């Protein structure tokens, strides 16, 4: 019961955050409302007993990526006067609604036809660090390694590129 209320609260928060991201004019407000969305998504993962996903969502998305974005917004000090003026917003809105309406109807139909059913926790340590690690390193070892090498290359590349200027001196 409590979990259900928590779920509805988190769902409402994440949708509100997403709406805020689009509607706020100031980039900092948009970024912060997106952070709200990311945190409430992390809460949903926790409700689904996916602990590792919960932690990763917080560390990577809410913690690292969004703080970089907020950092850059602060660094460039973007004010509302720097943003381009948007004329004919209403026209775009109408056009957008016309384009999206069929897809929305389709989605609505899909959601309507979803079978209702009780959810239960799978058990056996589902979503825990050890089990996710086992799956990742046994069934998906090669893709995982390729991605990690890619990230490592990016990391070292950033250091090398940043260090080059000094060599020129």
């Amino acid at each position, binding site marked *: 019961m409590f979990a259900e209320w928590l779920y509805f609260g988190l769902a409402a928060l994440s949708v509100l955050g997403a709406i805020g991201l689009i509607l706020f004019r100031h980039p900092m407000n948009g970024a912060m409302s997106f952070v709200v969305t990311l945190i409430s998504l992390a809460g949903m993962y926790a409700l689904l007993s996916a602990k590792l996903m919960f932690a990763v969502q917080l560390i990577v998305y809410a*913690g690292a990526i969004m703080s970089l974005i907020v950092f850059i917004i602060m660094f460039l*000090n973007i004010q509302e006067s720097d943003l381009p003026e948007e004329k004919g917003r209403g026209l775009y809105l109408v056009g957008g609604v016309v384009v999206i309406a069929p897809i929305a109807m389709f989605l609505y139909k899909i959601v309507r036809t979803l079978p209702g059913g009780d959810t239960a926790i799978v058990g056996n340590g589902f979503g825990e660090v050890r089990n996710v690690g086992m799956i990742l390193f046994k069934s998906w070892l090669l893709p995982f390694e390729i991605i990690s090498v890619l990230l490592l290359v990016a990391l070292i590349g950033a250091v090398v590129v940043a260090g080059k200027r000094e060599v020129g001196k």
Partner: protein
Amino acid sequence: MSQLDILLVLLRVAFGAFVPLCFIAALVWLERRGAAFFQDRAGPNRCNIFGFRAAGLVQNLADAVKLIFKEDVIPGHSRHKFYFVLAPLIVFVCALVSFAVVPFADALVIEGKQYLMQGIPMDLGILWFLAITGFAVYGIILAGWSSHNKYGVLGGLRASAQVISYEIPMGLALVSLLAVYGTVNLGEMVHFQGRLLFGFIPMWGVVLQPLGAIIFIVAAFAETNRTPFDLAEGESEIVAGFHIEYSSMKFALFFMGEYVAMFVSSSLIVTLFFGGYQIPWLATETLVANARPVALLLLVVIPIAAALFSGWIRKNNKSHYDRPKDPRVFEAKVYIGLIWMMVIVLEAVLAGYWLYAAGGAADRILVVLLQIATFLVKTFMMCFVYVWVRWTLPRFRYDQLQKLGWKMLLPLALLNIFITSAVVVALS
């Protein structure tokens, strides 16, 4: 849930919330008196209530009163007042919540039920800490940016760039540690450190991972924005950095947040590298099996320690010039009386345990209390290292700081991972 369950939940949450808060007072005192000690002066020791100075602890009360009654200024030119108010809250709450997963004693077993001794009994461990400290950056960024002040923005930029870049060596140092321990759960890590290497060296993280320990400790210093990495608030260049526009309790929240963060990161360093709550050479089971001799030892040791301590107080707490009816001698007498009263209470409790309650659950509780004391002593010592470093080393220049992070610590941490994983694979 039985009554015992509810009681233990309350106790653990209270410990997780109030111990960091109490440590703020202790650490502010430690910082001031420590600074004075390193600079060969006395430090704040005059503030008193009816002549009782409590070694300078009363100064904290005076500071708190000052901060509460100051005018709370919100700059009129700031257009983002919501973020301005939110920022100190984020910093303080993040620091406090990140302590929730640090185990302060071994699991308490009562009537066959296990109670994990941490604020939130969750097995995410170190991941939780990384997640929460990632959020503290928002507080700093928002504070610097919403103050709408050049120094504030500069301080915010410096602080966030520093925290973001030091998170990488910290995370990599943790990776090699995780390879050694084979778990992310802090409780299991401390269990691992209770064993002995070659039969006589405690298997602490600092013994198994000396390089990782150094990298982690340096990165932890940078994460808490303390000297030698405190150029986010470098007084001599950008006045106070990100909290320049803050006054009254909003400033106090930043201030307290800094000390809570210092406490939490020292407790984490202790948990990861210095055996956590483990008493060296005495694992939990040994202690439980020998609870009676341990209690007897305490019965003997506590009065001796109290006698030495009160002798030290009597020797040092007196005026250094002739005064009629020296009030400090009277003060010392009261302190000594209080100490002996505490000793009597402790002795009574221990004697009661010895006579009536020994065996069963009481043994476990005694061991848990001992381990909590060990944990707090170790953490306090690590906090002293923070103070020690702060008043010994000068501040880094900004480019030196980034160079240290990216060009020294990062490659070292990567090297450490390779060596560690090779050794772990070879041994297993």
